Each structure stands twice: as structure tokens, then as C-alpha cells.
């Protein structure tokens, strides 16, 4: 084993890692609020809101991530009519795909709060939307925090799929260096180590939050 290959190519690899982190972060930032809206729609008593939300969620969840990413990569430029860049096209695919998974987490979080709290909010003259935003979602968020963080870790792992459209995220960068240096053993070991560290940090955070939740 010759680890110098990693030191020598570290700037390139870190650029890739930064791309992965940026992509995952932006995906979560956009997917989460979107998922909140869809989740509220998903439990609405109005059919014309509930059905489309359900169809969206099920359609996304029954397709592989790679297909959705590919699909949006080619679809987004068609819709916008002008190129928005590879990064944006890929990101939109991820946002759409993961918002479906976030929706289901949020939905079960909302349902863990219970109908009576909704009735309490509504009975004081708050609108349904206000009740959701100020009473139900904050409680739901607290209950679902561990599941949400776990999902964020999955998003981070999922960003590896971006390599299919040539985006230089971390794994793709590692791959490119491997092609040149022919040192796959060292490079992939390093990549696995990095993914482990990031994901372990995430799941530790989830555990911490879970503990804090029990205390309050």
C-alpha cells in the first residue's frame, strides 16, 4: 500500500468531497420545506389535495434514485428552455426524489402528534395552516428528528449517484484519480473511510438528539 497517492491528490479529492457536501446540504435545504407542504397535503381531508400528494410520493418511492436523477437531468433543461447547468439539474432530481422520503417521515411525525392537538388549535380560531405550522409541525419535528438525520445521511450517500451524469462529487473524483494513478485499493479505502466518518458523525448526532429529547 502506498498512501502518498492520497496526499498527492488531496486537493482534488477534497474538492470532490466539498461538492458532495454542498449537493447533499442543498438537497436537504430544498427538499425539507417542500416535503412539509406535501406531508400536510398528504393528510388533508380534501381529496384534491390528498390524492396528488399520495401519487407523487408513491411514484417517487417506486422508482430508483438513478432513474429520477437521469430523468430530471434531461427534463429540467427542456422545461426551463435553457441550460441551468449540470449541478442544478442534478440537484433538482435529488430534491424531488428525496422530498418523497422526507414527506413520509414528516407525515408519520405529524400523525404521532394526534388529532386532538389539531382540534385544539382549530378550536381557537387558528387556520388549518397556522395550526400545522405553529402547533403540529414543531412537535412532529421533535419526534422525527432522529429519523430525519438518518435520512440526511442517506441523502449524503445518495449523492454518489451524481457520477452518472459526470458531476465530480467525492466518489467520482476518487474514481478519476484511480484511473490515472492505478491505485484503487488505497483510494477506495480512503473513500470508504471518509463516508464512514461523515455518516458516523450524522448518526451520533441523531443519537444525541434522541437523548436530549428524552430529557426535555
Amino acid at each position, binding site marked *: 500500500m502506498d498512501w502518498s497517492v492520497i496526499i498527492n491528490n488531496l486537493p482534488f479529492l477534497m474538492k470532490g468531497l466539498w461538492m458532495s457536501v454542498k449537493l447533499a446540504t442543498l438537497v436537504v435545504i430544498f427538499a425539507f420545506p417542500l416535503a412539509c407542504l406535501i406531508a400536510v397535503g398528504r393528510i388533508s381531508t380534501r381529496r384534491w389535495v390528498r390524492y396528488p400528494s399520495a401519487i407523487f410520493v408513491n411514484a417517487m418511492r417506486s422508482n430508483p434514485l438513478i432513474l429520477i436523477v437521469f430523468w430530471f437531468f434531461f427534463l429540467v433543461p427542456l422545461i426551463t428552455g435553457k441550460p441551468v447547468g449540470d449541478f442544478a439539474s442534478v440537484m433538482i432530481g435529488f430534491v424531488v426524489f428525496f422530498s418523497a422520503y422526507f414527506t413520509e417521515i414528516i407525515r408519520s411525525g405529524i400523525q404521532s402528534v394526534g388529532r*386532538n*392537538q389539531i*382540534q*385544539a*388549535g*382549530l*378550536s*381557537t*380560531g*387558528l*387556520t388549518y395552516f*397556522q395550526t400545522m405550522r*405553529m*402547533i403540529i409541525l*414543531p*412537535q412532529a419535528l*421533535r419526534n422525527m428528528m432522529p429519523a430525519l438525520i438518518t435520512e440526511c445521511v442517506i441523502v449524503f450517500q445518495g449523492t454518489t449517484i451524481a457520477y452518472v451524469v459526470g458531476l465530480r462529487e467525492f466518489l467520482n473524483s476518487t474514481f478519476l484519480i484511480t484511473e490515472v494513478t492505478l491505485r484503487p485499493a488505497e483510494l477506495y479505502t480512503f473513500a470508504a473511510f471518509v463516508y464512514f466518518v461523515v455518516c458516523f458523525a450524522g448518526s451520533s448526532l441523531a443519537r444525541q438528539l434522541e437523548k436530549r429529547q428524552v430529557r426535555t
Partner: protein
Amino acid sequence: MTDPLVDIRDLSLWYEKFKALDNISTSFSSGRCVVICGPSGSGKSSLLRCINRLEEFQEGDVLFEGQSLRECPNIAALRSNIGMVFQHFELYPHMSILDNITLAPRHAKGKSKADAEALAHTLLERVDIADQAKKYPAELSGGQQQRAAIARALALEPKLMLFDEPTSALDPEMIVEVLRVMRDLAKDGMTMLVVTHEMVFAREVSDEIIFMDDGKIVERKETDDFFSNPHSKRAQDFLDRILMKI
């Protein structure tokens, strides 16, 4: 005002195929305290929830101050005139007692934070938990929580208060403190509809009593009349069972 505050007309409510309220017509005038009793599943809670349209009834109508609930364009605004108190309090666990109480005045009635808080402190004083404002619901006893919930409902400055078994989740010593608050409210002329099995409260505080069974109002009488004169057999059986338990 001669009109009744709440006028219920041929109201029927179904849950799927099950008819929970069966063609109910009745009305409630301002300033009166009416107790609703009846066996479990008779539709008492359902009736209360129709009065602020938490339940979407399928037939008939409820008029609140002459306004049809069925045709009400802004049901949230209408609800902000009706306070509701639940069996399990339903305080918001992630907010302090003060925030629980000021939430609706600020966001549904458009009061300023300062006004809402001033009102909240007055009400907390009134329900005798002025020192609990900063605490969270889980830090209060059941009786204190229910009184906070009453304060939250009163913060709407409501024209009507609905109580759905406000004491049945409480220990006996806490029941007393909640009933005392409710008695004071009735004395002050608040219009109240109270689902309860507390017959002592009913006898001492209420003006009228409604007995429900099978989604229908079987009987409605002035309180003195209800307790002194013989009534329908079903109501009598029910009363015997309730009073036996005490």
C-alpha cells in the same frame, strides 16, 4: 338580543355509515349554563364539535348569532368567538403556559404581543395559577393544566364556552379546583355548554340539563325540574347509575 346564541336545526352527523347525531334541533341562549349528559357513545362530544364545526355535519345547520355555519365563509374567525375545553387538556406541550394562552389572541385575533400577554396574566390570575406562566404544561399538575386550558379558551374573549368532560381525566382533589373555576365563570354570566357526569356541579351550577341517548336529545329540562320530577326511564336509569357511583 332575543335571538338564541346557538340555534341547531335538524342536525344530523354521520361517521361513514354510522349516524352519530340524529336530527337534532335545539337552541341555547346567552348567559345560560347547560349541562349535557348521557351514556358513552350517545353523541355528546360530536354535538359540541358540530357547534364550532370541528365536525363537518352532513345535514341540517347550526346558526351561531344567526350566522349559518354551513355557509360561513370564514369558519376560523367564527371559531375564535367560541372557547373549547377538552377532556385531556390538549395544551401545546412545546410552548410555555403563557405562549399557549397568547397564541390564538395574537395569531387568530390579531392582538399585539403586549396586549395578549396582559390578558393572559389576568386570566391566569383568574384561574389561580398566576405563578405558572413561564412553565411548560408537563410541569403542571392535571388540575393546573386544565385551568390553564380554560384560560387559553377564555383568552379568545369568547361568547360561548364548550366543555367536553373537563374533569373526567382528573383526580378527585383536582376536580374540585377546576369545577370552582367553572362555577365562577357561570356566575359571571358566561354562556356555557358542559358535557359532564358531575351531577353535583350540574345541580348547583347549571340552569338546564340535556340528556342524550343514541344521537338524540331525549330530554331537556330546567335543572330543578330535572332532579325533582320523574323523567324518562332511560334518563332515570342513567342517573341512578351515575349517582350510585358517587
